[in-house]
């Protein structure tokens, strides 16, 4: 397909870029109310007035001098890939800070359309913004939008199309800084007049003054004299303002932003604190905040435990009603293999995984995640991280794969490695299904909770060890705190479905297939041969029934499969008749930690490389076997 136009969405974190992207392309980019959701750029297509338009969604960015890894993605795309139009999404409730970035885009002389988003929220906060005036001051088209409702999003595309074909010089900005800076920018521009390095001259001059390492390197290769000139000029500026030149320029940009805001915005201070602020006071309270957090976590666990059990039983009764009770190889294979595999997978999916994603969606969309990052910042220091790591950790409760990718919000390599390592130990929804569906259902909820506590202790201990022995230090948290908002039912359901879909498409067929294989192996007695080979570990050390050996191998593919296939391999639905409570606890414990699933290993390889991914995997296998054996011996004394 021929692409007529490329539009890139850029702006601060959590301003609604992904919402606009989803509205335009109809795709399901993850959205939610917390900074750092989008860590990779996403692409989608839109056909508008017969034109094929490619839309790019970029991670949030505060400045073109970059800080964390996901921000480099954005800067490189805007600077090097030259999209036809950059759509700068601006949060109308925080205009000053957002314009700081807009001004930098203007300096880059990129064809720009400003999408003034969240105007509905701004209005509620008592902020009125004069759209026309803003357009006049910035010299670029400004479109008011409410991305979540789709208001104005297609006007952005119309305005973008109108910009195509204009001469590059028409994108030069009229915005100017203080005289002492402008004089020096002009000097550098003159020096650069006969040189082409691919960037606009004014922008290059400013970046040279700011001592931006990449631009300095680029210019230094061809014209070291200009770099020296820039150093002298920037020192002159530092001397006047008693501050490094980059800080002076940042202050200047903010001064311009303040001036614009003063002209375009009228604010009426609301008389009483908003509901959001009142909720903040409770949920971020020094004592109450923590109590609330634990209460929420515990009630989610209890709810899913009971709901999952109830669904499993309902589905079992429904399907067993159709059981033809025939005997023989083929009927056994069809019923015990395929059918039981299918409905057991279905009950795991509907009972545990889907409800978890729905709850996670509500937490995400309401804006509760950053509050947890705030509350848990200090405790996170014990494991060498800061509070932001809690956000990927919470994602990890759903699935470890997006959590590994989400760890890109951590600023240093060291922090990312620790965060990824620990994310793979967080019990994902599949492991939750095993813990609650086996231990919770057959031994007791208190034992399931004990398993969670053991897991968290392991995370704490391993984090402490990593923190101790890995060189370097965490940089500390700097994060935006978004206000609460009412979660949108539509968004939550759509999001849960997008995350749930891969489960339906890949996991259910895999589990049904695996179930048929295991049933075949069981009937033909091959299963016992494989299981016997693993019995020194499974039977002798872990004290488990021999048939579990095969499940551990299968669990590498999907952890929840080990629960479903347990019934097939045991040849009965009442697991209590083949496993003692101690065995169930040990089985769930080992499944919980013994290896990240294949998809997680693949994500780790992509994020931190083969070597480290293999280290983590081997370590976790060893740890699980070790702890499982000890647990078996200890529990036998007590139970």
């Amino acid at each position, binding site marked *: 397909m021929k692409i007529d136009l490329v539009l890139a969405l850029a702006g601060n974190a959590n301003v609604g870029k992904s919402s606009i992207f989803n509205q335009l392309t109809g795709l399901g980019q993850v959205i939610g109310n917390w900074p750092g959701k989008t860590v990779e750029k996403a692409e989608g297509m839109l056909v508008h007035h017969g034109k094929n338009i490619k839309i790019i969604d970029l991670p949030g960015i505060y400045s073109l001098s970059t*800080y964390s890894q996901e921000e480099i993605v954005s800067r490189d795309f805007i600077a090097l890939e030259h999209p036809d139009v950059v759509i700068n999404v601006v949060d109308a409730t925080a205009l*000053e800070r957002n314009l700081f970035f807009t001004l930098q885009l203007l300096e880059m002389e990129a064809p720009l359309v400003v999408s003034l988003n969240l105007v509905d929220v701004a209005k509620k906060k008592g902020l009125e913004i004069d759209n026309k005036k803003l357009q006049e001051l910035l010299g670029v088209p400004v479109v008011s939008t409410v991305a979540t409702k789709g208001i104005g999003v297609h006007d952005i595309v119309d305005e973008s199309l109108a910009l195509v074909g204009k001469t590059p010089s028409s994108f030069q900005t009229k915005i100017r800084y203080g005289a002492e800076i402008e004089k020096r920018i002009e000097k550098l521009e003159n020096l650069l007049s006969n040189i082409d390095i691919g960037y606009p001259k004014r922008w290059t001059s400013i970046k040279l003054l700011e001592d931006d390492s990449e631009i300095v390197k680029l210019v230094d290769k061809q014209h070291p004299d200009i770099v020296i000139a820039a150093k002298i000029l920037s020192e002159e500026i530092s001397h006047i303002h008693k501050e*490094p030149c980059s800080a002076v320029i940042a202050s200047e940009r903010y001064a311009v932003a303040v001036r614009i805001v003063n002209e375009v915005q009228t604010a009426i201070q609301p008389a009483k604190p908003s509901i959001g602020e009142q909720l903040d006071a409770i949920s971020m309270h020094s004592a109450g905040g923590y109590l609330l957090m634990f209460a929420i976590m515990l009630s989610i666990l209890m709810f899913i435990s009971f709901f999952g059990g109830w669904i499993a039983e309902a589905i079992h009764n429904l399907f067993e009603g159709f059981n033809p009770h025939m005997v023989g190889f083929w009927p056994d294979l069809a019923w015990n293999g395929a059918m039981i595999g299918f409905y057991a997978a279905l009950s795991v999916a509907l009972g545990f995984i889907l409800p978890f994603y729905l709850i996670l969606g509500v937490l995400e969309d309401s804006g509760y995640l950053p509050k947890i*990052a705030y509350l848990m910042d*200090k405790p996170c220091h014990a494991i060498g991280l800061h509070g932001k790591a809690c956000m990927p950790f919470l994602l990890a409760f759903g699935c470890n794969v997006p959590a590994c990718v989400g760890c890109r919000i951590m600023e240093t390599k060291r922090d990312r490695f620790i965060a990824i390592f620990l994310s793979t130990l967080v019990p994902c929804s599949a492991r939750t299904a095993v813990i609650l569906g086996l231990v919770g259902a057959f031994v007791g909820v208190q034992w399931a909770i004990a398993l969670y506590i053991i897991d968290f202790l392991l995370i704490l201990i391993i984090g402490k060890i990593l923190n101790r022995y890995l060189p370097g230090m965490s940089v500390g948290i700097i*994060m935006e705190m978004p206000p609460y908002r009412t979660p949108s039912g539509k968004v939550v359901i759509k999001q849960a479905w997008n995350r749930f879909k891969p489960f339906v498409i890949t996991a259910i067929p895999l589990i049904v297939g695996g179930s048929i294989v295991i049933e075949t192996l069981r009937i033909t007695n091959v299963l016992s041969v494989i299981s016997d080979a693993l019995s020194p570990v499974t039977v002798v050390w872990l004290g488990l029934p021999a048939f579990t050996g095969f499940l551990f191998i299968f669990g590498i593919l999907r952890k929840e499969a080990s629960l479903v296939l347990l019934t097939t391999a045991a040849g009965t639905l009442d697991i209590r008749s083949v496993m003692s409570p101690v065995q169930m606890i040990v089985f769930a414990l080992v499944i919980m930690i013994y290896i990240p699933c294949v998809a997680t290993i693949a994500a780790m390889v992509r994020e931190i490389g083969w070597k480290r991914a293999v280290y983590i995997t081997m370590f976790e296998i060893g740890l699980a076997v070790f702890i499982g054996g000890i647990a078996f011996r200890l529990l036998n004394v007590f139970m």
Partner: protein
Amino acid sequence: MPQEHIEEYLEAIYDIAGKDGTAKTTEIAEHLHNAPASVTEVFQRMERNGLVHYESHKGASLTKKGFKIVMKLKRKHRLLEVFLARFLHLSEEKIHDQACKMEHTISDETEIALCKSLGGPTECPHGSPIPPCNLDVKNCEECLAKQTITLEKREKEIVTITSLKPGQKAKIVFIRGGRGAIQRLCDLGLTNGTVVSIVRSAPLKGPLEICVRGCKLVIGRGIADKIFVQIEGS
């Protein structure tokens, strides 16, 4: 009475004082191996000089003037500790006693030169924060880049952002730390001269939620300790 003696009394009050900022006469006497009667006498003299508030039976607490002197001494003491450990390779147990003696004798100019040659450290080898200087600079880079030592003093008192009460407004005047951190703070709107206020802080020296340019930001305690402000209206 020699200046050094007075300074030791001030430091003792600072170190011993309870939550209300008052140090008991008997405690000070014990700490400095002096008779309580002579401690009382010194306290009365120090009160006349405006260094402490003294109440018989309760004890002495530092005035603003006294507090400033203590901060200066602590600064010299901890800078000296860094110097003794880093350049002279003295063991950690020895540096404290040595610095205790040296802190009373070095001049302000030496103090600044020491700070510069050490690259503007923020903590002593034992992990205690080094109080900032009161030079009229906006961050350490500017000072470190200069060849000469200037002694232009700030007129107004500065405190770290962490010592603000919730709702209290203050202006950023000085940010300590490396270029990367300063750049990030600038990008998020924490430029010099910006008015900020604290919304709340998490318990046990956790992070702070601050309000800047109409947005709320969370910053870790370690970073907040490096942002110095001047309280509005002070």
